[in-house]
């Protein structure tokens, strides 16, 4: 039984959840599927308060969406009787899918955010067991003008700054919205981000942002991967500038930032909107260490040919030093790097489409990979 510094990688797919554990981020044991035949569009691993809680958004085509959590690394799963996320009656809305589960900072234990479809942001103060709808965003006057991307209309990125006052949300399609009061009120912040598919290519809102991430070491610095366009903001999203130069393509879904180091981010380019494959069929991660001024192609350990794309939440980093980088493809392959992307090794292959991955360092807990594959399904 692993007892210290195991690495946990949770893999959400179109047809269930797999959990992988490793002592070294190179050799992995896989368990699953959990929730077989349900899609897992979101995962949050909350390692605060001395325990590891895995939160998963689960969605069955038949039985609808819900949120489960496990405090024993997937041995057992629980959900509140009445559901963790339920639209209040006056909204006349129903939850379609949980796109994002975001445990807040260690200084705010118990706080977990969720981004959902229809476009909405939710906040839990009890570790993700019950969420409350953010009314400021739900009642925003722009709501009627927000649209749906191909995957649905959702708030898919939530970024909270260290003191909790600044909250950035990205939605498809609507763009980036910012709150300076902890989520009470919201304003669009998309200046400089192109919406080339609009008659006005630089509208106040309506951009199709695919993912945003914050620089952990530079206050007010954010990065965005858009539907064509890679951007950085150095002024808390007041304005954005392109950092796509040096990349083989400016399309993609992924945006990752280093857990501690300034200026370090990763993207996984796809050729174009109309050709959603790695450029030339050659999959590669690209890393910047100077806030987007230059990019380094990273493909060691990746297949010579790969025509599957990588979705917005199908990539993540861990908090170890050096940081691990992980991603999965729509072809069901999952890769891990223990050295910030310099080398990758395959964790799993031939899984269903990978929708999301999340990784964490787990200390003093049994490894999920040592358990039998759980048989949890959505109704259980």
């Amino acid at each position, binding site marked *: 039984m692993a007892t210290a510094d195991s690495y946990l990688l949770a893999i959400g797919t179109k047809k269930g959840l797999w959990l992988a554990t490793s002592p070294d981020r190179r050799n992995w044991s896989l368990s699953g599927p959990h929730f077989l*035949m349900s899609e897992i569009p979101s995962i949050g691993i909350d390692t605060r308060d001395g325990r590891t809680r895995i939160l998963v958004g689960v969605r*069955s*085509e*038949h*039985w*609808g969406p*819900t949120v489960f959590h496990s405090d024993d690394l997937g041995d057992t799963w629980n*959900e509140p*009787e*009445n*559901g963790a996320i*339920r*639209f209040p*009656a006056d909204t*006349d*809305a*129903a*939850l379609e899918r949980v796109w994002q589960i975001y445990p807040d900072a260690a200084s705010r234990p118990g706080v977990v955010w969720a981004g959902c479809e229809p476009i909405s942001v939710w906040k839990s103060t009890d570790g993700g067991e019950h969420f409350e709808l953010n009314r400021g965003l739900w009642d925003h006057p722009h709501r009627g003008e927000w649209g749906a991307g191909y995957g649905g209309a959702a708030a898919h990125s939530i970024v909270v700054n260290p003191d909790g006052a600044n909250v950035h949300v990205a939605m498809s399609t609507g763009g980036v919205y910012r709150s300076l009061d902890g989520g009470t009120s919201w304003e669009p912040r998309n200046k400089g981000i192109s919406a080339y598919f609009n008659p006005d290519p630089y509208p106040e809102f309506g951009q199709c942002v695919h993912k945003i991430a914050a620089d952990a070491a530079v206050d007010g610095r954010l990065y965005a991967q858009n539907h064509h366009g890679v951007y950085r903001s150095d002024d808390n999203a007041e304005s954005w500038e392109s950092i796509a130069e040096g990349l083989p393509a400016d399309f993609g879904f992924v945006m990752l930032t280093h857990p501690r180091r300034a200026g370090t981010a990763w993207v996984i380019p796809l050729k174009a909107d109309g050709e959603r494959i790695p450029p030339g069929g050659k999959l590669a991660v690209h890393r910047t260490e100077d806030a987007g001024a230059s990019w380094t192609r990273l493909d060691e350990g990746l297949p010579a040919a790969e025509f599957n794309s990588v979705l917005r939440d199908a990539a993540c980093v861990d908090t170890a030093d050096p940081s691990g980088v992980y991603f999965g493809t729509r072809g069901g392959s999952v890769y891990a790097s223990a050295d910030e992307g310099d080398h990758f090794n395959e964790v799993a292959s031939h899984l269903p489409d990978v929708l999301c991955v999340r990784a964490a360092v787990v200390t003093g807990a049994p490894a999920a990979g040592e358990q039998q594959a759980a048989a949890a*399904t*959505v*109704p*259980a």
Partner: protein
Amino acid sequence: MVLPSVLVPLADGKSLLTAPADASVTVQWLLDFVAGNYPALSRRLRDETGAVRRFVNIYVGGQEIRRLHGLATEVAPGQEILIIQSVAGG
């Protein structure tokens, strides 16, 4: 109410649920009754607005309620209603 096997764990292991009624009741009344006793089961059948989920079929007298009167469809005392998931997915 006859449940598919996949939902039985949400009804304390019961595949057949019964509700006390001396006269006809509506499907909605029955679903509300179920919700009071088995809220997790209820969420699999209907969303927050009360709408029956798209790929959940409810049969009364051999007819799916969407072809009858929806949630207002009446169920006579002693009559069974069947919950059957659609043939859907890939």
